[in-house]
């Protein structure tokens, strides 16, 4: 137990900051995921076959390929891709991308594929009458989307978005392979130098449980908020 205290002799403070890092990666990844969902959900709903295909390709590939493989793709291919773009703009030289950005981006792409599916499902389960009614009332298209469709979409989407958050939070553990010091990496380091892997990995499990427990509490509140009137 002395190994877990804060300060010089224990790993408490290191693990605390690692937990914050995990949270930071998860939240950033979730937001990047929403950005992807914002792009791909309209493509998925649209009637254009080519746009449909692009969106379906994205969600099927990402959801069918292991997260670890996606992370390796960006870990090894990320700086090559960035350098390629930089070359077009006339910058020659080596660019190394920060592990946080690679991690958040690759988890974000994965989380985006799940979010896209959730929002598509929410959009499609809104009754047609709602669209027709807002049309009949003469609401402009964007007004009807933001005031009529979107609030109902959120109500339907939030329970599933909570699931996506759980998946994203747990996926951040995989980022440890890139060397970013989050919970898993920090436990690995601590376990290596103290030769007590059982303690540190079990403690890591507890930290993840705490994170999932409290985030579910918050998300349930949010769900209740959007469930008003039903």
């Amino acid at each position, binding site marked *: 137990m002395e190994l877990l205290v804060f300060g010089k002799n224990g790993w408490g403070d290191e693990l605390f900051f690692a937990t914050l890092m995990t949270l930071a990666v998860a939240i950033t990844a979730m937001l990047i995921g929403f950005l992807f969902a914002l792009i791909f959900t309209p493509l998925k709903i649209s009637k254009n076959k080519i746009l449909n295909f692009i969106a379906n390709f994205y969600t*099927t*590939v990402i*959801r*069918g*390929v*292991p*997260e*670890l*493989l*996606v992370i*390796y*793709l960006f*870990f*090894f*291919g990320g700086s*090559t891709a960035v350098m390629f773009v930089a070359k077009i703009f006339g910058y020659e030289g080596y660019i190394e991308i920060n592990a946080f950005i690679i991690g958040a981006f690759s988890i974000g792409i994965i989380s985006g594929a799940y979010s896209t599916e959730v929002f598509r499902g929410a959009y499609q389960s809104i009754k047609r009458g709602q669209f027709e009614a807002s049309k009949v009332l003469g609401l402009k298209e964007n007004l009807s989307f933001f005031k009529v469709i979107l609030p109902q979409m959120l109500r339907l989407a939030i329970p599933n978005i909570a699931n996506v958050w*759980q998946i994203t939070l*747990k*996926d*951040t*553990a*995989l980022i*440890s*392979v890139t060397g970013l010091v989050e919970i*898993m990496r920090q*436990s*690995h380091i601590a*376990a290596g130098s103290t030769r*007590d*892997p*059982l303690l540190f*990995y*079990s403690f*890591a*499990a507890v930290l*993840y*449980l705490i994170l*999932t*427990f409290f985030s579910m509490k918050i998300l349930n509140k949010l769900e209740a908020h959007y469930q008003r009137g039903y």
Partner: protein
Amino acid sequence: MDFDLMISSFPKLLNATLITLKLVSLSLVFGIFLGTFFAILRTGKNKFLKNFSYYYSYVFRGTPMLVQLFIIYFGLAQIEYLRSSFLWVLLKEPYWCAIIAFALNTGAYTSEILRSAFETIDKGYIEAGQSLGIPKNKIFYKIKLPIAIRQSLPAYSNEMILMLKGTSLASTVTLMDLTGVAKFIISTTFKPIEIFIVAGSIYLFITFLIHTFIKIIEKKLEYPR
């Protein structure tokens, strides 16, 4: 695009796919038994067993599978008692550690899937069975279980695909599965995109097979409404 590399790495990756398939199928088989067992406990009357089953699934679903794998592979070796017991034959092998971790993980999810299937069974079926005087265990095997299995197939196909992707974690404990070999080739050739396409296609193909397989079973087990 380096097509030669894609072609030359294909046999190696295909070979590694065998290990991936072995890991998936074994952990799914063990997982089904664990899942059924815990789902029965969960829907049973004994409060203690009910709670036990609840916390089992809560802990395994609330933590990343990587942590579970590391606790079993790195952590359990620390316990002196285990090292002298017969379990050590299994626990010293990364292969069996991976299967134990995966099976426990998928068991937790499977138990949740089956539990919700058991709970949504129309009470009328069970009452009908009781009023016909069918014994209790026969009601379970002949009425409850078949309906629950049919109910949970769509969710279970998702779980199978998640497990397929989950086995990629085996590469972190020195097993050379599909992802492990893919990573090895990437880190020696520095051609991530090519290898990603080949390995990703293999994964997608297996996903497709699982999906089709379950769809066929679903059709077969469909009952007239």
